[in-house]
């Protein structure tokens, strides 16, 4: 395996609705910022990969025009995934492992504001059985939370604690959409939104984008004093039908974590893509993270959840903290699909 590291990260300030600029205008400044952060011009980038969704944009081939933000001329080696940008990092990492790129740039963007995100995400479901029912993702997550609460896997108090900690952490994150001090007792006294979930158990609806630059071997050492090395990387998927899964745990996260070697050495910090409070509890357990691990110091997806991007942001946030010495070994996680159907785990380490 080649040594590949995240050497630069940039993101937008995430907002409920970015209505004055389009996707190209949203991406351009942070593409420049990420390249500057890596100390390279775009002509040194060997491979570009992006993540976004046509359904979110409400337009087929929506990613095509967005590429103009990078300015792919002369022609570049480039690919796109209709997945979270964390998987675009995976594709870039594979390309680097195959010896086809030394420097790669990955971006992702998602504007949920143009459509009704709960209706849009219902189009992810099995088109024959579930799709026609228009079940929305909050209802599915509520179903998962109920199963977990009834099974005693976690409590409403623990869920509220996750919300409070996330908002508190986000106070130090200038890019977060939500932040602040909240008492657990006060949160628990709020009305239920989609029972048993309260509003604070659910992610905000966000528009945002993010970029990372990856470099391999010598290029990483040349360009970064403290590269965040990718030491383990895997992703796994579970059955689509919720009835086929144990919703109180995350089997695919466990599988990916084992493959990525999460448990091989102590972990200091984890950025988990948990859009719902109970999902953070499920993920902490699946990843075997002990109480001492700093969880979502950025505030996580509960404080800014740009679709197709929130997973990539976890990788960037974790990498930044390895680079600045806050952590020596960090886990970044991304998820896709209803109730944590698909999960990606990446282990990042300093020297």
């Amino acid at each position: 395996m080649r040594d590949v590291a995240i050497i630069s990260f940039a993101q937008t300030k995430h907002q409920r609705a970015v209505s004055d600029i389009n996707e190209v205008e949203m991406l351009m400044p942070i593409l420049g910022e990420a390249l500057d952060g890596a100390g390279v011009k775009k002509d040194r980038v060997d491979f570009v990969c992006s993540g976004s969704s046509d359904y979110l944009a409400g337009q087929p081939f929506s990613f095509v025009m967005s590429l103009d933000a990078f300015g792919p001329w002369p022609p570049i080696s480039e690919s796109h995934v209709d997945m979270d940008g964390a998987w675009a990092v995976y594709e870039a990492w594979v390309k680097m492992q195959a010896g086809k790129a030394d420097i790669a740039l990955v971006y992702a963007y998602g504007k949920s504001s143009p459509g009704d995100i709960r209706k849009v995400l219902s189009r992810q479901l099995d088109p024959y059985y579930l799709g026609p029912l228009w079940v929305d993702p909050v209802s599915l997550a509520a179903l998962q939370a109920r199963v977990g609460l009834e099974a005693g896997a976690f409590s409403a108090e623990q869920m509220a604690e996750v919300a409070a900690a996330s908002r508190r952490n986000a106070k130090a994150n200038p890019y977060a959409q939500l932040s602040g001090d909240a008492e657990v007792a006060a949160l628990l006294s709020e009305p239920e939104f989609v029972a048993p979930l309260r509003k604070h158990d659910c992610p905000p609806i966000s528009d945002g984008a993010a970029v990372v630059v990856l470099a391999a071997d010598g290029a990483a050492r040349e360009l970064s004093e403290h590269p965040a090395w990718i030491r383990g990387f895997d992703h796994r998927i579970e059955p689509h039908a919720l009835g086929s899964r144990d919703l109180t745990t995350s089997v695919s996260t466990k599988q990916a974590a084992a493959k990525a070697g999460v448990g091989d050495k102590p972990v200091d910090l984890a950025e988990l893509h948990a859009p719902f409070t109970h999902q953070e509890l499920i993920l902490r357990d699946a990843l075997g993270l002990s109480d001492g691990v700093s969880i979502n110091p950025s505030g996580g997806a509960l404080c800014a959840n740009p679709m197709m991007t929130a997973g990539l942001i976890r990788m960037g946030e974790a990498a930044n903290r390895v680079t600045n010495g806050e952590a020596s070994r960090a886990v970044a996680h991304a998820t896709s699909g209803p109730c944590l159907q698909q999960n990606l785990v990446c282990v990042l380490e300093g020297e």
Partner: protein
Amino acid sequence: MMGSERVAIVGTGQTKHQATNDGSIAGVVRQAAERALEDAQMSWADIDAVVIGKAPDFFEGVMMPELYLADALGAVGKPMFRVHTAGSVGGSTAIVAQDLVAAGIHERVLTVAFEKQSESEAMWALSVSMPFQPPMHAGAGGYFAPHIRSYIRRTGAPDHIGILVALKDRLNALKNPYAHLHEHEITFDSVKESMMLWDPIRYSETCPSSDGACALVITNEKGGDAAASDGRPPAWVKGTALRSEPTMFAGRDQVNPRGGQECAWDVYKQAGIAHPRDEIDCVEMYVPFSWFEPMWLENLHFAGVGEGWKMVESGATQLDGDLPVNMSGGVLSSNPIGASGMLRFAEAAMQVRGQAGEHQVDGVRTALGHAYGGGSQFFAMWIVGAEKP
């Protein structure tokens, strides 16, 4: 940069392409996958990872369908990856799968690409009206017809070139049981007299809308050697390349895009090819409108600039010519959009493996699979060969 593992294609599979496939989406992709596994003499359990590609999700009305298809494709508990790069997606999906093996991450990868255009109304899906963009007055044909006119203006190509390509591909399709169109009665005159849809493009010079899927089983050197010693020769990957350029910019050459030219040289260089016309035995290229064959012959350096149409006219690209193109009947005979690029890659591999049946070209050692997408701006190519690189 470091080298990589050798990669072999040991299984290919596809559905019978047709206007409406009665199977479910899962059924269609699974049928192609099962055929590829059977060809590779493997079972679902042998597969380490699944890579799936398709064009816009609006075609079937399912957002990120890999989530729903995880079960049908035996991906549960495995990595499943979804690619979307417009029309080139079938090719770029196969490249992601081959990279996973080349990088040594997996030993056996299943890759699948599909489209079920009948599930929604494709014209609708492609024509979501965007309020701030200039109005599109004529669909995909209307977009590409001016580029074809520019090609004709530049090269002085005569009108019948497009007809010759259409006739050749449709006759080739008669030898391919999986092809969507089987037009037994087709003649030069019937193509010539078909309706001029988007002048200079006639009805018979355009591709159909198809439901269909394609799948490949890709393995490392060990897997390729095992298949070979079992009397099932693999196709070895000798090079892969991707290129993208902007949809429109001042002075963009849409007839002979630089991205395609550079992608071709990149993949030839990896395969050690200096003279593609002499060293490549046959080509499956992405030709949705017949005039794209002469255009791509130049873009891929098989003919000099302005000479592509002469190569067509000479018969060089016929099944018995010195560089057969689209032996399977190509996109002009079957167009399940998301799968169309992978079908080019698969058919190239089938030729190298001597598996193409009635449309097999004798003695193929090296073949090119080519896909493009968007406004002639995304390119994906691979070279496969009978000999281990």
